[in-house]
């Protein structure tokens, strides 16, 4: 069973310098995430959700404790090793989509594959497949400015999924979307989780997300206050 843990966090503390003292964003978190989970980290603003996601995503490092992701200890990785881990094994979905504004939909989704130096034919097929998954094949030549918020987020999901990563980290993916678009996005991600067995970890405080989750972890003031597996 130990081998199925994609993320293992033990005694994780994250402090940020604030003037002469420190602000503790995460305070002794211990958690495990298994392959194929569809888990939400829930809590109010400032509870440490995004910080936890950033550390799992190797964009930040622990102050104390450990975070092992896909067999790598995040605190011990160099910048290059962390970048390599993200490039090969992780996808990110952001609240503000973070699409590259001068690229078309196709080029945005293609971007992670260019970094992986995939050949053009395979790249094209993978991009078209990813756009098919999120149902936006009719806008491949559009630029982000020409898309609605829901469409942008679908492109962001396609970009995160195109390389079929083992882990997708989504930070408030529905915060900028209306209810209909939120449900559509969540259904898409739930289906990808089912079909591709990709592990999804959300940071959210959106109630609409919760009913799609298989597991719900609540954070408050940097501590885990509950960890429920949904039926």
């Amino acid at each position, binding site marked *: 069973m130990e081998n199925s843990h994609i993320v293992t966090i033990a005694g994780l503390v994250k402090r940020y310098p604030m003037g002469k003292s420190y602000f503790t964003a995460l305070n002794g978190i211990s958690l495990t995430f298994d392959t194929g989970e569809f888990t939400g980290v829930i809590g109010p603003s400032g509870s440490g959700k*995004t910080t936890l996601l*950033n550390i799992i*995503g190797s*964009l*930040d490092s622990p102050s104390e404790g450990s975070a092992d992701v896909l067999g790598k200890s995040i605190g011990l990785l160099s*910048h*290059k090793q962390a*970048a*390599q881990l*993200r*490039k*090969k094994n*992780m996808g*990110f979905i*952001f609240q*503000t989509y*973070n699409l*590259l*504004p*001068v*690229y078309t939909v196709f*080029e945005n989704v293609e*971007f*992670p594959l*260019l*970094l992986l*130096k995939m050949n053009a034919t395979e790249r094209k097929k993978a991009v078209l497949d990813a756009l098919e998954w999120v149902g936006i094949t009719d806008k491949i030549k559009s630029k982000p400015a020409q898309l609605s918020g829901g469409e942008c987020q679908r492109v962001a999901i396609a*970009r995160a999924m195109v390389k079929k990563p083992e882990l997708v980290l989504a930070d408030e993916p529905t915060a900028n979307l209306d209810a209909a678009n939120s449900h559509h996005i969540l259904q898409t991600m739930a289906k990808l989780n089912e079909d591709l067995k990709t592990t999804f970890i959300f940071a959210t405080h959106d109630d609409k997300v919760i009913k799609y989750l298989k597991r719900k972890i609540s954070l408050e003031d940097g501590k885990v206050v509950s960890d429920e597996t949904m039926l």
Partner: protein
Amino acid sequence: MTAFKLAYRNLIGAGLRTWLNVFVLSLVYILIIWFYGLLDGWNRQAKRDMINWETGTGQYWQKNYDPYDPFTLNDSHDKIPAEVKDDINKGLITPILISQASIYPEGRIQGALLKGIDPGQTILELPTEKLAIEMEEIPAIIGTVMAKTNKLEEGDYVTVRWRDVNGTFDAAEARIVGIFKTFVPSVDAGQLWIPLERLQEMKQMQGEATIMVCGNNYTSETIDGWNFTGLDILMKEIEDIIATKSKGGSILYIFLMLLAMLAVFDTQVLSIFRRQREIGTYMAMGMTRGQVVRLFTIEGAMHAVLAALLGAVYGIPLLSLQAIKGFAIPGDSGSYGLAMADTIYPVYSIGLIVATILIVLITTTIVSYLPARKIAKMNPTEAIKGKLQ
């Protein structure tokens, strides 16, 4: 290759901002190439004209002769050496006797140089064949500057006074048998060209000369009492002037480069300021900080590449037209005292073009890299949110 591909996409995607910078940079290319091409064209034209009209491929100077010291002229004459007689007959070398004189155009006294030259010579482009005429007066040809200064026209008479070898003054009438146009003022201003034998007779210096001008196929040798002066010395003056002009041009060069680099630097700083979220996204997707710095540096440097292409589109026809039509020098160029034609034809050498492209490219790359280094210090989690750092 990926970085180049991404940088190209980013640049093209940025639209007008990119093209404005590219246009400014392309202007820098064109202006630098044009200006230095013009200097090179002038340099070549001046040297060619000086060789054709004044210096030949080298000169023998009588050992006392110093062109910068007129007081040496009286003693700067000697028998034409026997060892060059054959070469003179073959047209490989031509002797010139130089004497100070006074002329009296319209009753005014003017200092002048009398230069005696063989009317049959073909080494210099002076129309000396017009001197091959038998007349009582001294036949003389002058340049347009001399003619204009002294209000002389073809067929006019002018009194010439000189001192012979013994210091005795003598005077005679000279008749202007030809007026020539040259871009080399040093064979024109203040000079009367007359037949060599006539001047030798006037000066009582039979068989003597002051300098001997060598033609194309002449191989110099050591001649006792005469110093050979090569083109390196004869051209030094014009080369010094061109070098001075080049230094002046460097200021223009630096000014243009500064303007263009300011535009590139400003664009880079603005890009890094405005594109923090994008930078964070690049890092989240697996680019290292170094790769992002490289991407932004290549983006900046690519302005120079696109500028070279854009510059080629409008620059090649414009510069070619200029090379064919030439650049008209305003005013009376002869009055500058330089070997400057009315029209200069720019010469754009491959070396000039390649050097200009390389210098602009390297400078642009450095200027692009300097602000891009800031990316290496960015916190990706802050950058993703677009927070200013």
